[in-house]
């Protein structure tokens, strides 16, 4: 879902960048007090895992593939604020080093996959009482929310009408989101088995 340079207008680029920078500042402050030294390598490992997992496009149908976002995975373990920082770092690295996502679209990509996805996914997870089903639904919804945000940004940029792009984006991402849900549940099962203390690792509240 990484938006390339040519799909955002200057206004949308600036607006999303401002929102993203402001929110990441909040995230840094929220994690400041609660962060523990022993968590640091795990946060790094999570970023590594998300980067790697995002490379694995899985075919769904109709000549289309999807890939994990991973925002909710990180949110459930480390809370939404730390997840935002991890996701922003990964997205920035992808953009600058690998040209995955345009530099002018970085603000939008961060907003979509690095802020809205972890935040809304986490809230849904909380509201649904943190069950296994909640994990799946939260992860699935995070993909849909991101795709809606992308649609809005594209239409506000004058690239395509909302009534065309929104249904199309939702259609594919309803299915791609199932992949996100399944992978997130499986990954959490594994991670909590390997290191059970990560079940109570949320940094800075929700």
């Amino acid at each position, binding site marked *: 879902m990484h938006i390339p340079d040519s799909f955002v207008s200057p206004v949308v680029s600036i607006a999303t960048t401002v929102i993203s920078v402001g929110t990441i500042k909040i995230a840094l402050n929220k994690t400041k007090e609660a962060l523990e030294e022993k968590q640091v390598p795990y946060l790094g490992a999570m970023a*590594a895992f998300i980067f790697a997992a995002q490379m694995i496009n899985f075919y769904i149908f109709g000549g*289309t*593939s999807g890939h994990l976002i991973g925002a909710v995975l990180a949110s459930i373990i480390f809370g939404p604020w730390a997840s935002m920082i991890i996701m922003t770092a990964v997205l920035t690295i992808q953009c600058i*080093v690998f*040209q995955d996502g345009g530099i002018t679209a970085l603000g939008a990509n961060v907003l979509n996959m690095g802020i809205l996805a972890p935040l809304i996914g986490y809230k849904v997870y909380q509201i649904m009482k943190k069950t296994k089903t909640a994990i799946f639904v939260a992860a699935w919804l995070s993909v849909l929310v991101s795709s809606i945000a992308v649609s809005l940004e594209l239409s506000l940029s004058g690239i395509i009408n909302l009534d065309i*792009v929104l249904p199309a984006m939702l259609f594919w991402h309803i299915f791609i989101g199932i992949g996100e849900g399944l992978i997130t549940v499986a990954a959490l099962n594994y991670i909590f088995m390997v290191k059970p203390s990560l079940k109570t690792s949320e940094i800075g509240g929700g």
Partner: protein
Amino acid sequence: MKKWLVILFCALFIGGLISPFASSSPDGLEKVAEQTGFLVHTGEAKSLSLIPDYNLPGVKNTSLATAFAGMIGTLISFGIVYLIFRLWLKGNMKEA
């Protein structure tokens, strides 16, 4: 072995060994761009990046180029996030 190292190795395995086998079909956004016609907006790719499109330059075999790109990106991601939190923590550690 430290558990975070286990997770890091999993990530390296995924990024390095599995990535060459990932689907090359367009993702949702690209598909929509194709279907609805706005893919034409895709401009010239600016090659300021080191490893454009996850292909390590100078490696002829594309699978290998992807594998190396995956491992490098995985390690960079670990390193940068580790540094961010480590430095952030250091800067905010209360005096003992």
